[in-house]
């Protein structure tokens, strides 16, 4: 599994915990669900954190855990349906281009 797939899976698993199924979905389904959810929220997330603030947070010399904390703080006041630190980890892993690129 790539790091990208891991963060999609983490989002998918969180979404899955909010509902019940007749059976457990496969990892592939959960990964795809996480990816689609993040894609559908990309614009909203980018509007919240803005491209400039994202670029500042993702500066090369900032340790990854610190980047996650900064972005989670930016997201904390917004209800997006997934915990801010889960989203922040996804943003740091996937990068600014994935979220705010055109």
């Amino acid at each position, binding site marked *: 599994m790539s790091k990208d797939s891991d963060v999609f899976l983490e989002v998918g698993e969180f979404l899955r*915990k909010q509902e*019940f199924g*007749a059976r457990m979905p496969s990892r592939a389904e959960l990964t795809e*669900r996480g990816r689609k959810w993040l894609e559908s929220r990309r614009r909203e997330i980018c509007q919240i954190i803005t491209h400039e603030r994202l670029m500042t947070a993702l500066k090369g010399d900032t340790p990854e855990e610190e980047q996650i904390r900064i972005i989670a703080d930016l997201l*904390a006041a917004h209800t*997006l349906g997934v*915990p801010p630190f889960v989203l922040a980890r996804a943003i740091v892993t996937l990068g600014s281009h994935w979220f705010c690129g055109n």
Partner: protein
Amino acid sequence: MELPIASKNLIKFCEERDHGSVFAPDDIAWRRYLEPCFAISFETWSQLLGARNQAGNNFDFEMALVGSTNAPNAICGFDGGTNYILLYHSLPVCLLEFFSRLLCSTPILSDCGDKDPNDKRKKFSSPLGFAIASGEVAIGSMDEVISVFGSCSRERRDMALRLYYFAMQFVIEHEMGHAVAGHGQFAAEELCLPEINESEFRARSDSSTSNKIYAFLEERADYGSYFTIINYPVLRYVQTDHQEQPHERKAIIEEVKLKILAGASLAVFWMLCDVMEANGDVTAHEVWNDHPSSVARAISFCTTPIIAAQNKLSKAVSDIVEQGVYAAWDELFKLAGTSGLFRPFLQLRQLDLHESVYAGRELERSEAEAILRKLERYKYRS
């Protein structure tokens, strides 16, 4: 029951959560293959609409069929105070194929209908229920599922359809069980709060504890489905003010037997789904995650209805349920001798059944009782 019309909120929920698009089957498919499955749950629980739970929510639900590319499944989601019961379109298709082929190619219910030599000519390489999903066979309608996969004996085709109805009713009622018990609201408010901090989230998501809680809720939903589909009709029969006739008693025992067989076979279908997803790993159906293993669910189908009847209902009811269940066991043991798919049911003969199937995988009794106490706030009562 008319085909439900999906609200905008339901459509949005399905799209946002990657459950696909709501679609309306044609009138024939609805009347013949879906309405008989949805109607019991819809009519039973519509009476509860508007009931308020102690957590301050009014009971509301919507049901829909969704076109999903995911594996066969059904979902109970909760959003904005409404429970959404979603049935993936692949589930009725796969289950109708599964039961049609089961009655065509195995000795199940050998006293039903005449053996037709043409049945033996219907051979497919995919496992039962997966010839359409795997692309081996293309079909254009639910009627065609029966004509392609069903027995040439009319009685056995009709029996396949009857078992399919029961299996689908179990699935839908399982999801309604989550809704009526308020599991969605409970999960949203107590298990996965989006605003909790990371350390708390990690602690709550500790896979063994979290999975055991979810598996416990799944068992409760299964239990609810046994009660509504198996025990409650027997209770109504016993309470009906009539002179009991031997043939009526025989018919209700037979119905219990068929329902248990349908439920047990449904669990076999879930086992096949597990094995297919695990690329043929035949131990996949023994794995517990946030659901009990498919084998455990299969065994529960064959044991829990009796326990539920004995604990909650009169002796007259539990006598009928017991006879039906044991008749189903006989059938399952016969099948286990001829088909590997049904071999796990031989465990029903083991004296240490509980130890071998459930022990160590479930919540401790005190933990389960604590969850049940919390759930009281979320339960809807008429």
